[in-house]
């Protein structure tokens, strides 16, 4: 997976240009990494919600990659005969990780609802093992953020699923209240 591998900077000029674009995006993500973590901790810090229900957590992040971990649990099994988890929770994982990649690609916290999401299930997830979701914002335009992600169980070369999701950048008027709310939550968390 070119978007997630390190040290494979292109051989041709075009490859290098593409690679630079990725690097630039990575830097932006890296700079706002603390904000991401705080944002995510704010979400997981809530007593309830879909994140907590699924037991998702943030994995250590490096090189601007955003990664979340979805632990295996009997509750999310879709086929009781095989113990394979339901695709729906993979969608939840990839929607979250792509959404966070989109949100952190911006300097300020922004409300970025999902416009659409497509997911391809390429192999069954092995029962009993956690699933890792990784995502990256690959293009940021004034209105739309394009992201791409994969779900795997340790080997990103053999993904369980891949996903592409687009997010809408809402105007600041919509974000206004949320930013205040977020700032207040951060302040109370620091105290």
């Amino acid at each position, binding site marked *: 997976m070119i978007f997630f591998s390190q040290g494979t900077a292109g051989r041709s000029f075009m490859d290098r240009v593409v690679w630079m674009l990725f690097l630039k995006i990575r830097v932006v993500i890296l700079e706002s990494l603390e904000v991401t973590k705080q944002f995510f901790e704010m*979400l997981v810090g*809530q007593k*309830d*919600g*879909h*994140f*907590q*229900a*699924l037991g998702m957590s943030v994995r250590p992040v490096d090189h601007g990659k955003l990664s979340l971990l979805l632990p295996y649990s*009997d*509750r*999310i*099994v*879709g*086929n*009781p*005969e095989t113990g394979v*988890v*339901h*695709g*729906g*929770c993979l*969608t*939840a*994982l990839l*929607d*979250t990780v792509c*959404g966070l990649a989109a949100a952190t690609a911006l300097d300020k916290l922004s*409300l970025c*609802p*999902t*416009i*659409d*999401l*497509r*997911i*391809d*299930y390429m192999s069954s997830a092995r029962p009993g093992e956690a699933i890792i979701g990784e995502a990256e914002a690959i293009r940021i335009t004034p209105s739309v953020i394009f992201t791409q992600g994969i779900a795997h169980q340790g080997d990103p070369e053999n993904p369980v699923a891949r996903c592409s999701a687009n997010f809408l950048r809402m105007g600041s008027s919509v974000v206004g*209240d*949320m930013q205040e*709310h*977020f700032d207040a939550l951060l302040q109370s968390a620091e105290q």
Partner: protein
Amino acid sequence: MKNTAIEARQLESLTSLIEKIPYAKFLGIQAKIEGGEIEFHLPPSRSHIGNPTLPAMHGGAVSGFMELSAALHLLYVMKTPKIPKVVDFSIEYVRAGMLVDTFARCEVVRQGRKLALVAITCWQADEKKPTATARVHFLL
């Protein structure tokens, strides 16, 4: 599972099938069958929250509900039930999903020997104003 699917059709109820799928119970999906039409229902739960400040439903909860609805719908209408395996899933979120009762209706666009395509429409207050539309390809 196959026997449960056959039984579901005989009883005109998807309850026993839902009981067998842990993820279906985790989400809290319900199904109502009237005149052969299946309406899926997801009662609001704190565990579906994605954005706590609004509060809005998590996109993953909505998509999980729709994907599951499609699988249950297909299991129910197939002449010889086979466990459908999802190949790909695509969803468009057209309105914000608030933390209220959510409904879904499915339509089998095409069922071939190998593949089935199911379209799903999801709404909250008004069926004419969908909150999301989706489609799933299943391998049979």
